[in-house]
């Protein structure tokens, strides 16, 4: 059985690890409380831009050194930014633990070189342009902006073309010092790792992190304004789009809510690809390409998404059908065999996921960062087994019966509305 160990270093940095000496690999990740919800308007997109800059050199390494060394250690490494955190991670063979930790830890003290900053700005602008061309053409970002408002949880992760073009390196430096403080960071590890060596090495490497200058929290933006480059229109016109893309958003359980397992089971019964209420009515029949729903948990709030993709001419009738299925579930509940099927699937999924340390890492790190809590695979399986039909029906009444904010991305000339 894997063993869980954790500690807090003298500078406040927390370390959490699920150790299994039988693993072929070891996964490590720095989880930082720095996401788009922590930004103000003039910082929009900074968490993500900063994530890119972490690969751009330190006092000890040039940008090319960082990328070269990551490759020399084999395995898989990358980083991502969400509304609530930025994560830097890698999975390597256990023999590379020391070298990888030295590198990842060093990366978290970037020089933020001005030339590299200017070049990387172009890459970010390309990333924004790339997503503008891809379905569903920003409909999820728009849904978050309208539902939560364009700040806080509703602030888009990549920022806008306007905010990135005008971003200054000094703003990034201040943001870095504000968010990348040891008490805001968890180092998580899973698989075949040497925990004691890990703690000793990181204690020494991060000794100076507590001396980072303190920076004043910036003034909040006026809620009466809309940030540059943001629109709150609920219809997004896309030239030449063949399909209509419809996103709905309403409140859901947060990451500490007792309802969250029942809500996930409800999402699976209603929206799973390959066998769920929406699948059989809308996908299996060829009415829609996508018809699904799911809860998304944030730290202290939650969202419930619905998503449908179909021909513009069928959008109205399909949305009506989807709403009927949702209302039918609220009114009449679910069948015991539906819950059994969903839980069998979820149980097998958890077991399969547990085989790769790289899969376990994200749950361990995020949970420890946001809740200071550890859930083993067996704990998660126990939570699944304890879900009752009544729990799921209560979740349906609580979360599905609320007002939904709807966003449509569709060709300019299309007549479809929902």
């Amino acid at each position, binding site marked *: 059985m894997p063993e869980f160990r954790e500690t807090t270093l003298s500078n406040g940095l927390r370390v959490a690890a699920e150790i299994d000496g039988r*693993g*072929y*690999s070891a996964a490590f990740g720095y989880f930082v409380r720095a996401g788009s919800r922590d930004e103000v308007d003039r910082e929009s997109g900074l968490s993500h831009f900063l994530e890119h800059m972490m690969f751009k050199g330190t006092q000890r390494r040039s*940008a*090319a050194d960082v*990328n*070269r060394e*990551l*490759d*020399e*250690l*084999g*395995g898989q*490494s990358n980083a991502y930014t969400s509304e609530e955190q930025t994560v830097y991670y890698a*999975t*390597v*063979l256990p023999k590379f633990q020391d070298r990888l930790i030295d590198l990842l830890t060093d990366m978290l003290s970037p020089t933020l070189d001005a030339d590299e900053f*200017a*070049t*990387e*700005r*172009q*890459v*970010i*602008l*390309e*990333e924004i*342009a*790339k997503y*503008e*061309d*891809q*379905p569903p053409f920003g409909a999820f970002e728009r849904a978050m902006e309208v539902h939560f408002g364009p700040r806080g949880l509703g602030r888009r992760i990549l920022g806008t073309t306007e905010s990135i073009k005008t971003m200054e390196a000094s703003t990034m430096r201040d943001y870095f010092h504000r968010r990348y403080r040891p008490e805001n960071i968890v180092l998580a590890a899973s698989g075949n790792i040497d925990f004691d060596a890990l703690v000793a090495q990181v204690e020494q490497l991060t000794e100076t992190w507590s001396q980072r200058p303190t920076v004043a929290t910036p003034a909040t933006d006026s809620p009466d304004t809309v940030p540059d480059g943001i629109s709150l229109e609920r219809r997004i016109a896309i*030239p*030449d*789009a*063949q*399909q209509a893309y419809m996103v709905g958003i309403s409140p859901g359980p947060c990451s500490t809510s007792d309802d969250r397992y029942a809500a996930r089971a409800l999402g699976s019964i209603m929206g799973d690809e*390959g*066998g769920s209420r929406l699948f059989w009515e809308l996908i*299996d*029949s*060829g*009415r*829609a*390409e*996508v018809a699904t729903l799911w809860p998304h948990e944030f730290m202290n709030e939650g969202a419930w998404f619905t998503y449908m*993709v*179909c*021909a513009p001419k069928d959008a109205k009738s399909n949305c009506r059908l989807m709403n009927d299925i949702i209302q039918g579930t609220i009114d009449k509940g679910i069948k015991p065999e539906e819950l*059994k*099927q969903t839980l*069998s699937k979820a149980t*097998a*999924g958890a*077991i*399969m996921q547990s*085989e*790769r*340390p790289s899969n376990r890492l994200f749950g361990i790190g995020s949970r420890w960062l946001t809740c200071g809590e550890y859930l083993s695979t067996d704990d998660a399986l126990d939570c699944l087994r304890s879900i009752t039909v009544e729990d799921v029906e209560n979740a349906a009444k609580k979360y599905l019966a609320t007002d939904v904010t709807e966003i449509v991305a569709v060709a300019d000339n299309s007549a479809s509305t929902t």
Partner: protein
Amino acid sequence: MPWLRTAALSLNLHAGVHREPSHLGGLSGMVCEMIQRGAGQYSSRDLVAAQDNLGIDRNSGVSTAFVSFGAAMPSESLEAAISIYADIARNPHLPQEQLDDARMMAVQELRAMEDEPTHRVMRRLRELHYGERLGRSNYGTETGIQDITQEDVRDFYQNNYHATGGILSVAGKVDAAQVIEWAEAAFGDWRTGNLEDLPSPAGVCKYEHFESASSQTHIGFAFDAVPYSHSEYFKLRAGMGILSDGMSSRLFDRVREKRGLCYTVTASCHSLKNGGGVFGYAGTTPERAQETLDVTLHEIENLLDDLESSELERWKVRIESGLIMEQESSASRASSMASDFYQLGRPMTTVELENLIESLTLDDIRDYWSANPPKDYRIVTLGPNPLTIPESSESTAV
């Protein structure tokens, strides 16, 4: 793989896209869908319930040569899973009343792909590279899908779903002797049939541009290369690793990191049994698209100029780490074995592959790339304006 808790299977039958009549593009995919709409004792819904209750994480789809079914699960479900997949392959109901539903599903997928500029570029590039028949899309054509009849579905099933040349691979926490017994019981008395060789590659060196008011110009390019089964393949692959595997690879470093020209730039090997190619993609805003194409092709053509052994060593560590970590996934191992079995006629062991990778030298890369320099590009772009392309490619706008 006794250290795992799971098992996985990969079932591959010679019922892929190349067996479709040319006027019925999409037929192989429709048949793959139809055989899963009820089989043996199971209705369409029963089948899904049975698979879910066994905890089977599954996928299915068609490629040029094959229809493939992948399933990963807790190991105790394997015997039942093999039996269910035997029913799907051998005893499908092919319910006529569901044909139009399956047809609409195929049309939905095809339309969704039309909204993906990257997919449009790469789909057309594949046709240019391999020719109409070998390079045709897995998603078919709208007219092909509309014209498919119940009889077409039955005929395609009858002619192409049989044991001959089929590959079932299993990996994970299993007893091999027992798996063979289960497979024998499930598939041992299945009928045989005829196999047809893949058509020969018939690519043309050409440039095509799709005009679109997109935010980026999407650039796809391809050139000839040896397939996986060729004795020189890993010399090609090592060169491609130096070009495009990892964050210190040349395309990532010199196109993205040093110049900031794009977010995505990538190139990789693709293999069919009788032909192969290198396929690449870069997406960039229109004003920088020409420079992106020029720099990318320059890097590919000048791979040999300043080769360093450290580049080869980094690629080796990446591949070897990947091979070791593959031991953590039954699904990944089952799929590699099936692919080896088809391409080479036998699965390669991890040790054999490690030795082969370890033995590669810079001279091997120089030999292959000097004898087979990239040329005769097939290039497809999508964006507001066409690009100027290398002289050897004939240009058309569509």
